[in-house]
């Protein structure tokens, strides 16, 4: 019983981390259709900025300044880079951000060196929040959950309820018409990209404690961010939230299951000898394959229901 509650709690915590990571991308991808390969790199920048500001000024100012700085970086990327690439289509946008992810990783190496930096949880938030069956849960994970939920409500309201949200949504599919109605669409895109990057920066501040702050962080995070956005559904913030919860919990529970197809076949009475070629494939335990379950989900979802769980459109 204990393992189930732990898995559930760990699953929720990991799911919220995933959502926090991909919330910025959900905003950018669903509003601007830009599959930002450099999103994880901006997240990494957030972790490095918060480490640096934290050492100079302290954790709480870093919690505010690091996301702002990442927002500025995002605005610069859109204003001086992506703006020229938009007319060339989605493929060019993806390629531009693909090159950008290499550049940001090397710039981080240039500034902070190759080795992981000690982005330790600052004392001010380094105490156990609560005990459950002897396992303590640190406060910073609680803070992370709060921020993650906060991001969800902010995005959901801003996206659906405010005028700016609606205008941005319209600008995605009919930019000419929206600009004809007097809205400065390019500046809107800069705003959206800045907000998305700031969210990534905020996620980086906390993520930097949960994960390892090192130049390879963006690469090792890799495409998990796209899985959340696509499985959740393009253009849907609630979809992304459900997807990150789903992935978090399914992956955590999968780790707890030590059974493989082979065991299942034994139960059904079919025995596969060790010599047969399939033995190796069938012997893979679900726990062993747990971390690649998101990609399995991605491929199956894209084929069966490319709109994703709550998506409104396909590209």
């Amino acid at each position, binding site marked *: 019983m204990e393992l189930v509650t732990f898995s559930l709690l760990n699953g929720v915590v990991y799911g919220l981390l995933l959502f926090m990571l991909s919330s910025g991308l959900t905003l950018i991808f669903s509003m601007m259709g830009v599959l930002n390969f450099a999103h994880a790199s901006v997240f990494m920048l957030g972790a490095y900025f918060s480490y640096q500001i934290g050492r100079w000024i302290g954790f709480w100012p870093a919690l505010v300044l690091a996301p702002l700085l990442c927002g500025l970086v995002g605005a610069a990327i859109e204003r001086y880079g992506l703006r020229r690439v938009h007319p060339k289509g989605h493929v060019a946008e993806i390629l531009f951000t693909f090159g950008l992810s290499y550049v940001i990783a090397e710039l981080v190496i240039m500034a902070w060196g190759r080795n992981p930096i000690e982005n330790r949880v600052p004392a001010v938030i380094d105490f*156990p929040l609560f005990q459950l069956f002897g396992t303590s849960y640190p406060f910073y994970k609680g803070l992370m959950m709060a921020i993650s939920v906060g991001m969800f409500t902010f995005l959901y309201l801003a996206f659906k309820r405010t005028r700016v949200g609606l205008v941005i949504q319209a600008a995605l599919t009919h930019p000419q018409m929206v600009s004809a109605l007097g809205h400065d669409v390019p500046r809107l895109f800069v705003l959206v990209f800045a907000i998305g990057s700031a969210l990534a920066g905020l996620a980086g501040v906390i993520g930097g404690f949960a994960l*390892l702050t090192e130049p*390879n962080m963006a690469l*090792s995070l890799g495409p998990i961010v796209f899985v959340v956005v696509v499985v959740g559904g393009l253009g849907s913030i609630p979809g992304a939230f459900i997807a990150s919860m789903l992935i978090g919990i399914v992956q955590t529970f999968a780790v*707890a299951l030590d059974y493989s197809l082979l065991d299942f076949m034994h139960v059904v009475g079919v025995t596969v000898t060790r010599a047969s070629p399939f033995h190796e494939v069938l012997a893979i335990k679900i726990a*062993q394959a747990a*971390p690649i379950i998101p990609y399995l989900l991605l491929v199956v979802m894209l084929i069966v229901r490319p709109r994703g769980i709550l998506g409104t459109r396909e590209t």
Partner: protein
Amino acid sequence: MRYNPLACIALATTICAGTAAADFKIAFIDPLSGGAASAGVSAQKHLAFFTDKINAAGGLNGEKITVLSYDNKVSPQESLIMLKKALDEGARIVMQGNGSSVAHAITDAVLKHNERNPGHEVLFFNYAAIDPALTNEKCHFWHFRFDADVDMKMTALTDTIAKDPKIKKVYLINQDYSFGKAVAAAARSMLAAKRPDIQIVGDELHPLQKVQDFSPYVAKIKASGADTVITGNWSNDMLLLFKAGKDAGLRMNWYTYYGGGLGSVPAIGKDGVGMLKHVTEYHNNVFPQMTADEVAFKKRFPDKGDELFYWRLRNTFLLLDAAAKKAKSNDPVKLARALEGMKLDTPVGPMEMRADNHQLLQPLFVSTLSDKTKYDIEGTGLGFVTDAKLDAQSTALPTTCKMQRPPA
């Protein structure tokens, strides 16, 4: 002839081959950029340090050693291209350590090169790839390993576990590839032999460098009631596992291969004191006083992250120097023959290069993290203190290596 873009581009990339000066070239092929760069760059510093020492004392039979560094980015294909470049530039020894996949590519290429180019042989000094296959089914005359392999290190770990009656339930967690599986298999067989009463309550394999959050695995370890964890994880997989354990307040005996690696001790912090053990050929608290080499190394490389981590590289160059004097020639074949079966004394005890499978036997230390040590690691105030020391001979294991030696 019409304008042909292909021709002009190909000619523009004329690459001039370096001229072979009359000195003893060692090619160092390891990651110097990208993810695993920190390990490669650290080893590069050790090479520079130890070769300068030998050169200061007159080099090898009068020839100065020059180290040619090549960045292979932990890719077998890049390493093979760099190997060709090194052979062109007259390298006589190739040194590599990070990644068994690279080691297997190089050992295979060196064997084929030597068979196909008699008279231009090259030796392969492997200082860190510890897949047992390299000195068993894949062994050959030109490959020398200067680091204890998976099974030898597991012998040291399981000997220490055998002596600790409090250990009842052991949990194995490793990376899902040949190295991780070798660690798990060795742990199972040796524990069954030495302590049949110990119950293995978990045997976990997770994809290599893919897991971002180890808390589910930590929860599973807690639920299994284990009191000890054995793991061969390295770099991110080790650091993140420690971080998840610390977050969940997991109090566990950690028996590791790379628990003392870069960034690991800061990750586990005070929770590791008395609990984190690792097996190495040296650590900075073996002697009450820092050795001369460590002092000189620290002076030359003051940065916090740069410790004299690879003691085995010191042994490597001791052996090379002795072999050159014994063979009175720098020809790789003679050096290899001199190196086989060579015995040397070192401050921590005698070491021997086995003649049958070219595996170096050197003393192994199992040490525990403690907060009361003279020298600490990466400025954390925590250092390792020796639990048990195995002398070189006791780490020897039977080998299936059937080596073909070149004609005398």
